[in-house]
């Protein structure tokens, strides 16, 4: 079966391998330059943006020279679905649309063994390719992570465990869609759509709720840089801010309308905004997840997508077992 699986899927595996290789090498080359901006390594500068002059300078150069690359990283959101769907969609669909399932399942290899071998091999390649790419990308992002933390959407979604879980999920959707629709191209399309829908809803709605966020409430400081319009993050720089705002002295949260009225009054009075707020006992609050929850959240989200993938693969196995063509 090994030769057969390779022979049937070698085009997809080679194309994907080539793409991963190309982008991987590009990231390695650019990443080396980015890392070189930090003589002691980017990790040393984590959180030091406002404190250490050398780090601040490094971060400034990072933004100037490599900021554009960070913007392009958003394209890599699609890496898991491209890999997973490319390998999963034709697995059953191509056999069904070409009629070769009648050939494949009447040799001496029982259906279920055939399916198990294919699923294991292609899921394995999916995880391996995605994993290799994620490793390179995580390394590339180290300077940027030192600057912004890892909870940002363009860091969390691209690093750690979750991309492999996403890819496995895409593989599961594509294979199941292929089994039900019996055509590769529509299966690919369904996988893409399902992937985007699932990823967006989980990232925006579910992820903030993996744990109860922490809240800090403290009076608006008198000092503070003027160019931050009245707000300085209280939590550590690498945490994930869910919500922030202002409250009055009793702790009641101010609506943004009320805040703007205060801001307007401060401007009319001609005083510094922070001093104005401080004088009235206004507090600022922040709802956030601390940075050390990164790996917990990674595990939870990865488990979610792997479980979904397992359910989808289970559907495929069940359908083939019951000979529902």
């Amino acid at each position, binding site marked *: *079966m090994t030769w057969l699986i390779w022979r*049937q899927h070698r085009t997809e595996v080679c194309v994907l391998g080539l793409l991963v290789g190309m982008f991987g090498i590009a990231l390695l080359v650019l990443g080396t330059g980015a890392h070189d901006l930090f003589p002691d390594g980017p990790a040393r500068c984590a959180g030091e943006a406002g404190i250490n002059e050398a780090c601040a300078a490094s971060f400034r150069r990072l933004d100037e020279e490599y900021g554009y690359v960070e913007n392009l990283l958003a394209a890599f959101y699609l890496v898991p679905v491209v890999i997973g769907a490319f390998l999963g969609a034709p697995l059953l669909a191509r056999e069904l649309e070409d009629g070769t*399932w009648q*050939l494949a399942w*009447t040799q*001496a*290899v029982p259906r279920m063994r055939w399916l198990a071998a294919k699923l294991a091999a292609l899921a394995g390649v999916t995880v391996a390719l995605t994993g290799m790419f994620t490793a390179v990308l995580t390394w590339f992002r180290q300077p940027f992570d030192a600057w912004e933390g890892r909870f940002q959407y363009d860091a969390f979604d691209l690093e750690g465990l979750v991309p492999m879980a996403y890819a496995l999920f895409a593989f599961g959707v594509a294979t199941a869609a292929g089994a039900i629709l019996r055509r590769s191209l529509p299966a690919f399309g369904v996988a893409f759509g399902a992937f985007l829908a699932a990823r967006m809803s989980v990232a925006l709605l579910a992820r903030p709720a993996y744990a109860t966020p922490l809240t800090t409430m403290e009076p608006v400081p008198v000092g503070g840089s003027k160019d931050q319009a009245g707000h300085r993050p209280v939590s550590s720089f690498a945490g994930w801010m869910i919500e922030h705002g202002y409250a009055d002295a009793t702790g009641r949260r101010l609506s943004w309308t009320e805040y703007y009225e205060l801001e307007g009054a401060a401007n009319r009075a001609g005083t510094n905004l922070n001093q104005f707020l401080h004088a009235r006992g206004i507090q600022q609050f922040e709802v956030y997840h601390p940075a050390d929850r990164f790996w917990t959240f990674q595990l939870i989200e990865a488990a979610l997508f792997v479980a979904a993938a397992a359910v989808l693969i289970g559907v495929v196995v069940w359908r083939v077992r*019951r000979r529902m*063509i």
Partner: protein
Amino acid sequence: MTATEFALRTDGVGKRYRKGWALRDCTLALPAGGVIALVGPNGAGKTTLLRLVVGLLAPSTGTVEVLGHDVTASTPQTLSRVGFLAQDHPLYKRFTVAEMLRFGRACNLRFDQGLAERRLAKLGIPLDRRAGTLSGGQQAQVALALALAKRPDLLVLDEPVASLDPLARHEFLQVLMGAVAEGGVTVLFSSHVVHELERVCDHLVVLNHGRVTLTGDIDTLLAEHRLLVGPRTATDLDRAGAVVEAVHSDRHTTLLVRDGAIPTAPGWQAQPIALEDLVLAYLRRPSEPRAAVTSGVAA
């Protein structure tokens, strides 16, 4: 006949889809060692029945027993005894012929590589061509070589020559019959063409609207049926035996009877019937559930 002398036994087999029953109440006992034709119009359920026989589909009702074992419990050993050639002879079009043979070798317990290569060489089919670039007849030959190389005890073919030109069809049947002559393999194939059956098969199953209407050894069937031609009459028909079909014209009546005697009324003549006409008569019968006409095999 003992169980092992049956190539195929089904008992009340049916297959239901959302839109209705594709196959119903199929009870067959087909002997090993010969060539069996499954005949019926398109949509009669032939492909469904064949897929049930090779285990590609699961029956909704009934059981299917192939070469003595239940088809739903398939192991590599039982799978290797049955070869299947699906309609339109599917192959992996991007594989070369040599790679198709390698596929056969990789997926089967027994695979006679030398036999397959000799066959293909004799037919002039090069091993390094991609299967998709071969002609229809050549693809059919490659698929047949693949199925025969695993040395099955039962070879099932779904409309194997339907899409082939006359020369390719003849060449295909030459190879198939040659394999039967070498011994050991029972062939079951389906066809919607009734024309040249007698030349190739010794056993027949007629399928229409998802039901078996006739099954039996061809020589026995032809011996049991005859055409009775006589003056136009509407009465006394039951005396003639089991009437399969009655055709009336202005002046005379033609009856197709099974195991019947000539009516005593004067002017009646008996004639033998050709296989093609026999099958057509059974295909023209309206599709009500009734016991299939079976002959030639004591079940």
